[in-house]
């Protein structure tokens, strides 16, 4: 068992027992559900919109080379730089080198999951550069020295009282639990950062190929400040974020907003495509786009799993997931949590270390049902499991168990005998009062469930005797 797997089991078990956490998350997701349902009903035909988004992303991902090159060319035409990073290290090095060579002391960041993926913040801080997260949720988890709990709502796991206590401790002179005043306090502090930072780092919701621009959405306007006030703007994006045409945003933007938060459109929708042009009055002096691969090309080469790259990071599958609601966002120990994380992480970071995430699902399919770009998420979990068995290592006890299982189910006589033995074993365990103890093979079940009735005879035995029933 990998270390990540052991850590997941421990943390998930701990959170599963935390009833307060469960209720807090339930409340948050309940209000999301109300909003997103209302949002979907605003569409003339939500299913058609999903299909359209699936088509756009399919076209983009299946012509990724072409659209990325088109994007690069357009950005360069306007004087921007494009750097292709094979992995986390290359991406980090490009940005840290840039920051050092330009004498950067402070970086303001708008939300970027890729920056979490490549651990950019820590790399910059190691060089003595101050990094400030400017999305309110990210700002809060940064103050707590935590990773985001959720890709869209990073501070979902915190209530007002906890945030008030945090601000009181970390921001001088703030002593209130009024949400508006708390937001105002964060805003005051962040304004100073926006205007003193030399570099702004943003992610990208979409890379628009024909326009050579990045499309950004935020509800707080922080991305606009990050991308226009500091003299250097760095965009950090996975290569899968490219879309063919500007007009595709007409569908993708409202669908992303609706799936993400239930809004018809996110409050601030921004396009940025290069440094300040001669006829412009504001904008950064330098514009850099770092395109991160980090395992994505390998996923692209896998025809069966390729559609996982369609993901637009809306978080809908996470909100729909009953496992997420139970174990919480931090238990996963990965940048991407919930169903998309359990599908993607073993592919990007290796089945060997992260296959347990693909197994940590009841395969209920709630994620697939809500995905706005129609990724068949729970079936990809099945594929990951199949590949884990064929290409990686599974516990010998499991391999042996399924060999035994196959031996017994390939013959009705053997099956009946094994069933009889299993019931006998259960009765012995019960008679000796060993159910749920370390000696009980059904311990994981019997520890959490009241003892089930054990039938005297199987269906087939009863059928043979009475030819059915009366």
């Amino acid at each position, binding site marked *: 068992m990998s270390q990540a797997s052991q850590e997941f089991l421990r943390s998930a078990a701990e959170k599963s027992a935390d009833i307060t956490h*469960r209720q807090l998350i339930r409340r948050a997701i309940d209000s999301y559900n109300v909003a997103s349902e209302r949002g979907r009903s605003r569409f003339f035909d939500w299913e058609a919109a999903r299909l359209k988004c699936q088509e756009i992303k399919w076209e983009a991902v299946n012509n990724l080379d072409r659209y990325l090159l088109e994007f690069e060319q357009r950005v360069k035409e306007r004087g921007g730089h494009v750097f292709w990073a094979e992995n986390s290290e290359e991406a980090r090095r490009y940005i840290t080198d840039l920051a050092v060579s330009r004498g950067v002391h402070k970086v303001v960041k708008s939300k970027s999951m890729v920056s979490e993926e490549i651990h950019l913040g820590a790399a910059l801080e190691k060089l003595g550069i101050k990094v400030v997260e400017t999305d309110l949720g990210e700002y809060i988890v940064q103050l707590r020295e935590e990773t985001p709990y959720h890709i869209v709502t990073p501070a979902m796991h915190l209530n007002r009282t906890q945030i008030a206590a945090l601000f009181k401790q970390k921001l001088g002179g703030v002593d209130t639990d009024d949400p508006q005043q708390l937001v105002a306090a964060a805003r005051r502090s962040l304004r100073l950062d926006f205007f003193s930072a030399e570099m702004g780092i943003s992610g990208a919701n979409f890379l628009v190929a024909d326009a050579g621009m990045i499309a950004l959405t935020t509800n707080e306007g922080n991305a606009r400040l990050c991308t226009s006030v500091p003299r250097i703007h760095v965009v950090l994006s996975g290569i899968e974020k490219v879309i063919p045409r500007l007009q595709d945003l007409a569908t993708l933007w409202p669908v992303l907003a609706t799936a993400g938060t239930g809004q018809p459109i996110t409050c601030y929708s921004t396009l940025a495509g290069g440094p300040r042009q001669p006829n412009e009055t504001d904008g950064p002096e330098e514009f850099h786009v770092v395109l991160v691969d980090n395992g994505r090309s390998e996923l692209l080469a896998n025809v069966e799993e390729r559609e996982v790259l369609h993901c637009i990071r809306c978080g809908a599958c996470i909100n729909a997931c009953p496992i997420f609601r139970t174990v919480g966002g931090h238990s996963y120990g990965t940048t991407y949590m919930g169903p998309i994380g359990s599908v993607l992480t073993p592919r990007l970071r290796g089945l060997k270390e992260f296959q347990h995430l693909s*197994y940590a699902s009841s395969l209920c399919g709630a994620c697939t049902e809500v995905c706005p770009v129609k990724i068949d998420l729970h079936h990809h979990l099945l594929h990951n499991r199949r590949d884990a068995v064929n290409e990686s290592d599974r516990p010998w006890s499991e391999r042996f168990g399924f060999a035994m299982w196959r031996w017994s189910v390939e013959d009705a006589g053997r099956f009946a005998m094994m069933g009889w033995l299993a019931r006998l074993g259960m009765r012995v365990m019960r008679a000796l009062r060993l159910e749920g103890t370390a000696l009980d093979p059904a311990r994981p079940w019997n520890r959490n469930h009241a003892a089930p009735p054990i039938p005297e005879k199987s269906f087939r035995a009863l059928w043979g005797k009475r030819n059915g029933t009366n």
Partner: protein
Amino acid sequence: MAKVSLFIPCFVDQLIPEVGLDMVRVLRRIGYETEFPEEQTCCGQPAFNTGYWNDARPVAERFIQIFRKAEIVVCPSGSCTTMVRSFYPELLAGTPLREEAILVGQRVFEFSEFLVKVANVTDVGASFPHRVAVHDSCHGLRELHLKQESRELLRHVRGLELVELPYSEECCGFGGTFAAKFAAISAAMGDTKAGNAEASGAEYVTATDPSCLLHIDGILRRRESKVRTIYLAGILAQTDASAERKARSAASEGQR
């Protein structure tokens, strides 16, 4: 008289045979002859879901050989029906049996689906004077798109009051081997479901999958809850006559 073949899931056969017997009672009452192909064992889902497709494949092929002649197959589990109908074609991709698997899959029906969509029966003459809530088992709901079928059947049961289960579409946490591999998560999800069952005011929770109910039942009894579980066929099998018979035998047992 029309004839149906019974597809009895392995765990029903070995652990909860009354589920199969109840289904047979209902099928016979509405005029179907039933046969049980005794060579059947398991559909292969446990291995398939755990990633052991090479072990699941011959078991699936065996299933198709056994049921290839059957005209209609009825199964008391949405999950096992899903395995055959939705997953066999993928599992058997590139093998000679794939086409036949698709044909067999079109003839396998989950119990409530069979009653409402194939037999066109919604009133099976049952009587069950209790408050009942329906848990939507995931495979039935999302793979087979069954939701109204079980409710339609229950609405026609004498004396039965259908109550709403909060978050009825949320997974109960069973998930096959998931319940053993991630027991803590599974149990917590079951606990959430049990809490909702209690909040619903129902006396019984029912579902299209007895595996969900096995899990929910163990959690409910562990909580010493008053709510009980009963598989759909268990409700539909009960008539005024069977209730009387039961009462008589209980009384005579009491006298002894």
